[in-house]
């Protein structure tokens, strides 16, 4: 958990995270390190990372591979500031790449154009979770 302390997450906050997702106890140091590095690689600073992990501890439980594919997808569709999108809505990291495709296809079926869909997603990423 040292890496979590290093980005400013307190002992109490870590305790809260473990209460919600006890599985996180099983996550290795290396897993946590990788998750933090992935966020840094897209421009997140420690404040963003702290916000993301405290708001969405489940991120630590995700597959690195799925997260990297998700980020590639966001880059591919033209999201310019992924760090801001994730700071806005940390739960976006629970999505898989296929869910982005599904969302976009659903919106295209509503006769929206792709540019508008991406812009809407960028300004309010939580719309992907509106059922």
């Amino acid at each position, binding site marked *: 958990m040292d890496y979590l302390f290093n980005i400013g997450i307190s002992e109490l906050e870590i305790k*809260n995270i473990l*209460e*919600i*997702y006890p*599985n996180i106890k*099983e996550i*290795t140091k290396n897993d946590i390190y990788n998750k933090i590095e992935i966020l840094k690689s897209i421009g997140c*600073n420690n*404040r*963003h990372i*702290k*916000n993301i992990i*405290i*708001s*969405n501890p*489940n991120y630590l*439980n*995700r*597959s*690195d*591979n*799925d997260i990297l594919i998700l980020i590639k997808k966001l880059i591919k569709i033209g999201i*310019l*500031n992924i760090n*801001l*999108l994730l*700071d*806005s*809505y940390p*739960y976006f990291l*629970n999505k*898989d790449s*296929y*869910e982005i495709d599904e969302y976009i296809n659903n919106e295209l079926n509503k006769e929206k154009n792709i*540019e508008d869909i991406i*812009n*809407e997603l*960028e*300004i*309010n*990423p*939580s719309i992907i*979770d*509106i*059922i």
Partner: protein
Amino acid sequence: MIEYMLDFGFTEENINKIINTYPLNELTENTLFLNIQNNNSFFINFGYTNQEIINMTMLYPNLYTYSIHNLENKIKDLKDLGYLNKDIRKITKEVPSIYGYSIENIKNKLNEKIKLGYTFNEVVKISKYSPSFIVSSKEKIKQKIEDRIKIGYSYNEIIKISKQNPFFYNYSTNNISQKVNNLMDLGYTKEEVIKITVKEPSLFGYDIEIIKEKIRNIITIGFSYIDVIYIIKIFPACLNLDIEKIFIKIRDIINLDFTKEEVLIMIKTYPALIGCDIKNTKDKVIFYRSIGIGEMLTSNTKQMIQSIDLSYARYSFFKEQGIEINMDNYKKLFVQQKDFISKYKISNKELIEKYNYSEFIKENKNGLLI
């Protein structure tokens, strides 16, 4: 030998099972006794308790046919695949027959799962939590996937859920079907239940009565049943929170100088607020109030989703341009990037580099003065 085994914790029934199991029943008593003593010592040194060793050997008495060298090699093979000692203990306690698998056999089993859509690391991770996953045949897993597709999940959703909830394949089809029906009985459509459980696969582990109790608890805060159903639909992770944690979060937001009624409205409008880092929420509240648009926090709570870095940068940009932001025009802060660029010829990236919120808070530790 009998005395040793009774002292170790085996019952007479256990002992009978061991000495009558083939090929242990082919060994001389001396050889069998030596194997039992050696292997028990080895297992204890590796970190198993006596009872765990008894349970393992009852599931798989042939453990006493393996030499120490053989067991050591098997542990090394598993470590080479990425398992830690504690993982190996956990897996072998549930599936002791793994000690009898050749490394090629284990790799084949892993590869079968990879072909289903997992990475190597994901298979290893799932099997750490759900050891039977590693030894399950591909036919068995495929059948489980087909059963879940019949319930209404897509292939991708099933793979995703199983990565988040490694026990997903352990639940019976009836159990999952029942869980879906139980959630529908709460007032959701089937499509909503599918989406909710994909978002929060841990819900499969909750008894429906626990979920109902959580709903009743959230209602006591001041929400209606319909509100709670909506909140769960949008933010099902709230079911992972103890009611005390939700109370604390609400109290923390009230302490930012809101009434309880305002906080309830804010959460109804933006359910993920329950899960947000309170420090981040506090920064946003202080910032928007400091620039005179605090009223927006309750009248248009959804705008709180925007990263404060961007709000600060855009605000600073407007201020530099001589444009004062107020409740009549605050939506300028939240327009889509393409509209912002086309009107003001500056991207979000350029904005946040030029007007850096992190630097701003470093310089204004005592109070977010704009």
